[in-house]
């Protein structure tokens, strides 16, 4: 038997396990292995190495899954909070920008309405003040809701512990 045949068999033995070989190659390899003891031993050693690898076991740390699940849930809670904050700040920014841009018109509009209805200046000026305080009031409401959410989260953590 030539060296080339052994080299081909060697290559096919590994290739069969790594990426598969054609049926024709399989047939040729089986015939060669039936006739060549050294290549058959090599094929056996390769098979044994893979079997040993598959047979390896590791011991899992205790409660690994439950501890991880807890951490993941905590992080999920945090993540659920983050977009709300972005939304609050975005709403705040838009609100203040809109307020600043429309302030002269609102002032004139309230002045006109106040004069037309004959109300004292202080009343429509207070109205203008309210117009400016509105975004802050909205943010305050959101913060209160956020705090309520944090309280329920703390309760949930206590239950988990």
């Amino acid at each position, binding site marked *: 038997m030539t060296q080339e045949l052994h080299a081909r068999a060697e290559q096919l033995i*590994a290739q069969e*396990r*790594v*990426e598969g070989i054609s049926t024709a190659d399989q047939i040729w390899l089986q015939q060669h292995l039936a006739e060549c003891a050294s290549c058959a031993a*090599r094929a056996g*050693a*390769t098979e*044994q*190495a*893979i079997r*040993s*690898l*598959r*047979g*390896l*076991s*590791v*011991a*899992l*740390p205790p409660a*690994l*899954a439950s*501890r*991880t*699940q807890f*951490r*993941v*849930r905590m*992080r*999920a809670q945090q*993540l*659920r909070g983050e977009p709300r904050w972005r939304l609050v700040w975005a709403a705040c920014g838009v609100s203040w920008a809109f307020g600043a841009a429309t302030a002269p018109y609102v002032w004139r509009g309230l002045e006109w309405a106040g004069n037309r209805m004959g109300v004292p200046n202080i009343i429509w000026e207070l109205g203008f003040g309210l117009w400016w305080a509105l975004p802050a009031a909205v943010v305050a409401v959101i913060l209160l809701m956020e705090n309520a959410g944090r309280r329920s989260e703390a309760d949930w953590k206590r239950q988990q512990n």
Partner: protein
Amino acid sequence: MCAALSGPTTAAALTGSASLLFSTFMADDTKSLALGLRRRDPEVLDALIEQYQYRLFRYLLYITGNRERAEDFFQETWIRVLERGHQYDGKSKFEAWLFSIARHLVIDWQRQKKAQSLDALTNPEEGAPMEFAGDDPSPLHLFLAQESEATVQASLERLPAIYREVLLLRFQEELGLAEIATVLSAPISTVKSRLYRGLEDLRGLLAGEAA
């Protein structure tokens, strides 16, 4: 059958609501899984953690060579899965995506340590010896952990990490070449050459240990 949720770890490993979820997944496909991850559904994540705990921990243990580190990376991997769940498109196997995340975490950590490659992570000369075995093995485990397993462990320890990794992904995790290439972010030709070289080296090492 859902490819992402099938594999060596079976429904028997799941408990309670997780097993119910598992059976639900069986009828669905990876698209459902992708949807659950996008929604950051805690029930989906719980079931996945239970299902993949053994395989992911084993993979991390073999690439880091340290149980505590593997445990830390295990938890970080699932946090990353939660945060980046929207990036899983459901077109590929979930485990390939999962292992890829785990691997990147290990590589990032290794880069912070200013090492050049995954290989340095488990170089016995540079760090602590590898700790594959559990701290408190059961009598059954001790009985089963006989010479042959110890020989394989010893041989694996001596294999460079880049070869050990592909061998484990191919022959323990049963991933395809393309999937391994995804995990490694490397061409299939690289995966193949590492597999051939790793298999050759492992066979040689096992023969040496046996002799």
